[in-house]
């Protein structure tokens, strides 16, 4: 019962703050609402018992990405500056497109026979298991994507420095 209530509170928080993120006219506030959405998502991961993923979400998204976005906002606009309101026509057409897409996907989800959830126990998912999988070169290992993503992060870091450097 308590889990149901917590899930719906998190869900409503995610939806409300997502809407505020895309409609708020003060950019800094939009960034803070985005932070709330990401923290509520981490709460969802905690409820699904993926603790490591929730911690990664909080540190990388909540700690890294949002801080980067806030820095960019402070560098490029005045505090208290409002973004221009989109035209009514554009708002209507975008809302129509979003509604049509959401209606299509939700109608498929509601009709699809998902079947019963298998109750397969013996679930090994502590952090030690995740670490072994990430560095395993065997059949269920993720060593290659792990290394590729480390090269990607290095390339992104160097690229960001080169792009943002003063001439």
């Amino acid at each position, binding site marked *: 019962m308590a889990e149901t209530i917590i899930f719906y509170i998190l869900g409503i928080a995610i*939806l409300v703050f997502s809407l505020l993120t895309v409609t708020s006219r003060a950019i800094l506030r939009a960034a803070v609402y985005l932070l709330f959405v990401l923290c509520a998502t981490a709460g969802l991961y905690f409820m699904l018992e993926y603790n490591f993923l929730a911690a990664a979400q909080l540190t990388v998204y909540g700690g890294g990405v949002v801080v980067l976005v806030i820095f960019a906002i402070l560098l490029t606009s005045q505090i208290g500056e409002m973004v221009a309101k989109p035209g009514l026509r554009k708002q209507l057409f975008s809302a129509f497109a979003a509604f049509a897409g959401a209606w299509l996907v939700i109608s498929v989800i509601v009709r699809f026979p998902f079947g019963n959830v298998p109750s397969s126990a013996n679930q090994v998912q502590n952090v030690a298991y995740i670490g072994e999988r990430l560095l395993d070169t065997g059949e269920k290992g993720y060593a290659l994507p792990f290394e590729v993503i480390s090269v990607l992060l290095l390339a992104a870091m160097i690229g960001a420095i080169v792009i943002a450097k003063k001439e």
Partner: protein
Amino acid sequence: MISVIPIQHILILTTLMFFIGVYGFLTRKNLITILMSTELILNSAAINFVAFNKYYYQGEMQGHFFSLFIIAIAAAEAAIAIAIIVNLFRNFRSVNVEEVDKMKY
């Protein structure tokens, strides 16, 4: 959690979140707010991976690792995007998509 909440509710939640992101992507004109909309979209996709992993493939961890890699790629993408935005602001004094329309000035 999985015994009390059907997976459809999680999927509907992420669908709505995805299309809220799409709405923001279509209406916003400021580059930073467009970036925030794409973060919403990526985040909803990551929740979907995790939900399917948890409900139907509990022994495996593929969805979990996909979400982990999505988070890492989103961080790299945000770093690059913000470097580009700062550079554009330096050259054009604006981060509005309608005013920034040249690759080189």
